[in-house]
């Protein structure tokens, strides 16, 4: 990774505006890189705050995506964000906080969920961290059940393919171990039915593990994306720790799905910087590459930032998370009445529960 233009910090903003940062053959404008870096830092700050919460008792179980910020931030920035089939649908798993942050979610909302507050807009204090649901942004509720998002994805994509004049696509994300579930195969089959191909971008974030089980001990396939070949689903493997490469891989995949209205696969190699979850201790793993450090160093080398500015960005992100934590902790817990809320949507044909669940039929 290197800068294509010689740039010294005192060239100021004019130079920054035209500067391109490169990785291999591909480049991104420095301003975009800076935006990505800042978002990655905020996503990292959220994860680190939540890990602390899991240890201090301010939250319980933690699971999340430190080590996936580079790829997931690019995904969030590239999504065609909106509501309904004209926009992209996101079927995510539990390591996608950076995607939501890049889409515009305040850190506060992630922390509200970790703190189980009634103000948690995604699950009302019900679900684990990173289990987002956001109707205005087409984010389908994240569930802990591995891989089920892959069988729902063809459904939203079908509605998008039919949507006149639309180019919305369906993006589905999961881990490498989960691809062993039949749901992954279902997604390939349902997305490639002859004459009924669907715009599904199937993403596998490959961190090499399912909890403690090493991928190489269970999977003979050289790359997950090779499984797409017999179905005519093209794909590529990308270094998910490299935001510039990730950006372009995502662009290629999205463009393909948008224009051809057919499926595409991306396998992103990512790090797992705090192990699987709080259940495995969530300790920092020093041996895996850290995308935030790497990208920071690249931007410093390119003269986009100096080290002090890098630190400042991270400190600001940590302060934002700390303030969000303070706010979230001041907010109310759910009440006993909340237990039943939103079991059912209001129905005109249900004489027992016209509005919502009210306990056993009376």
């Amino acid at each position, binding site marked *: 990774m290197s800068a294509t233009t010689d740039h010294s910090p005192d060239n100021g903003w004019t130079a920054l505006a035209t500067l391109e940062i490169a990785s291999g053959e591909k480049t991104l404008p420095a301003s975009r890189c800076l935006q990505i870096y800042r978002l990655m830092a905020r996503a990292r700050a959220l994860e680190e705050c939540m890990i602390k919460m899991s240890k201090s008792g301010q939250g319980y179980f933690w699971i999340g995506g430190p080590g996936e910020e580079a790829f997931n931030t690019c995904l969030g920035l590239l999504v065609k964000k909106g509501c*309904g089939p004209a926009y992209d649908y996101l079927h995510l798993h539990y390591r996608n906080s950076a995607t939501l942050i890049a889409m515009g979610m305040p850190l506060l909302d992630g922390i509200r969920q970790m703190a189980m507050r009634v103000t948690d807009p995604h699950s009302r204090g019900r679900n684990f961290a990173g289990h987002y649901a956001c109707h205005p942004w087409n984010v389908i509720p994240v569930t802990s059940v591995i891989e089920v998002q892959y069988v729902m994805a063809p459904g939203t994509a079908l509605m998008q393919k039919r949507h006149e004049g639309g180019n919305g696509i369906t993006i589905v994300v999961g881990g490498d171990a989960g691809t062993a579930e039949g749901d992954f195969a279902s997604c390939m089959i349902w997305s490639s039915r002859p004459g009924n191909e669907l715009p599904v971008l199937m993403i596998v974030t490959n961190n090499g593990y399912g909890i403690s089980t090493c991928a190489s001990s269970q999977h003979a396939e050289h790359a997950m994306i090779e499984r797409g070949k017999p179905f005519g689903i093209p794909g590529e493997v990308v270094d998910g720790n490299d935001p510039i490469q990730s950006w372009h891989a995502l662009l290629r995949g999205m463009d393909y799905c948008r224009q051809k209205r057919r499926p595409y696969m991306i396998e992103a190699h990512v790090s797992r910087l705090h192990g699987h979850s709080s259940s495995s201790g969530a300790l920092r793993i020093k041996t895996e590459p850290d995308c935030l450090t790497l990208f920071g160093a690249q931007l410093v080398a390119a003269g986009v930032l100096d080290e002090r500015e890098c630190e400042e960005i991270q400190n600001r992100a940590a302060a934002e998370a700390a303030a969000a934590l303070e706010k979230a902790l001041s907010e109310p817990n759910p009440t006993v009445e909340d237990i039943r809320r939103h079991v059912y949507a209001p129905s005109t044909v249900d004489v027992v529960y016209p509005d919502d669940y009210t306990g056993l039929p*009376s």
Partner: protein
Amino acid sequence: MATMVQAVRMALHYGETYLGVTDIFGEDVGPPLGGVFTATQGLKTAWNSPLDERGIVGMAMGIAYAGGRPVAEIQFCDYGFNTIDLLKVAGNQHWAGNGHYNLPMVLMTPSGSGIRGSLYHSHSFESWASRLAGWKVVMPSTPLDAYGLMLSAIVDPNPVMVLLPKALLRVRGEQKLPGEPEDEEELKARIDAPVGDRSNWQPRWPDLKPYYVPIGEATLCRAGDAATVCSYGRTLPLCVQAADQIREETGQGCDVLDLRSIFPYDWKTLSQSVQKTGRLLVVNEDTEVTNFGEHLLRRVIDEHFYDLLVKPRLLMGRHVPGIGLNQVYEQNTVPQLPLIKETLRALIAEPA
């Protein structure tokens, strides 16, 4: 009169024509077959899916998330067991996601015994389904109720499972559907696909009218003071026959309740009837460990212990791994008319 399977087909036609149903799909649901029981012949939104029950449920969820109104079919409930975790997710997503999404999907599947279906075409599903919080589960026992419950299932914005009793799918009703032609033969000529080549066949749908059976409302098939009989699905008409025969023999009449909705069930009607009669028989054919009828009995005992004159009865399927093909197995594994009648007679006769 229409059969139940014709009634379902007409409800789906009404649904796709007037109620916004976008997709009716499943294994062999589209042309040329139109469903293994013919429930989906001639429908304009019907299509064939891969042989993948999890894929079918997931596809329905995705369509519903994106604003469509799917009716998905699991060909036999016997093949729905590998979808249970997806059904759990479908039932909990509105709640887990803080009400962000509604999931207006219908899952229909033939359930129960009575077609000499051996191990894998005789399962019941309602006890499993009753544990899926967030779902509504209905089970008609007449063509008219099948029509009315299907329309309600379609317009309800929550996941609704329509369990169709396999044994009753080809049985004709006693009441006409609104808009159904007078003559059975005419109906058949209009909406049943011909045997053989049907590539040029088009149905000529009658001018059907809406009819909604509210979800959560039972119907009283027979009225009487001697006892309360509560059932649904295949065993419901057997309960009616048993009650009729006993009335003929002894002059004693019973309340026979067709529950129609498994969840939410009509507690009010059941509760009032039990208070009136003090004697209760619940009949279904799902296996006895653990059975939805046990829940009804538990509530009756909790809330009407002192209203009961004698111990309540519950007839269910036996807790064995399956229903064997030889009719000695089937006849003695799930409740049949003689046992229902004998049990009801004993219930009425027991001194208070």
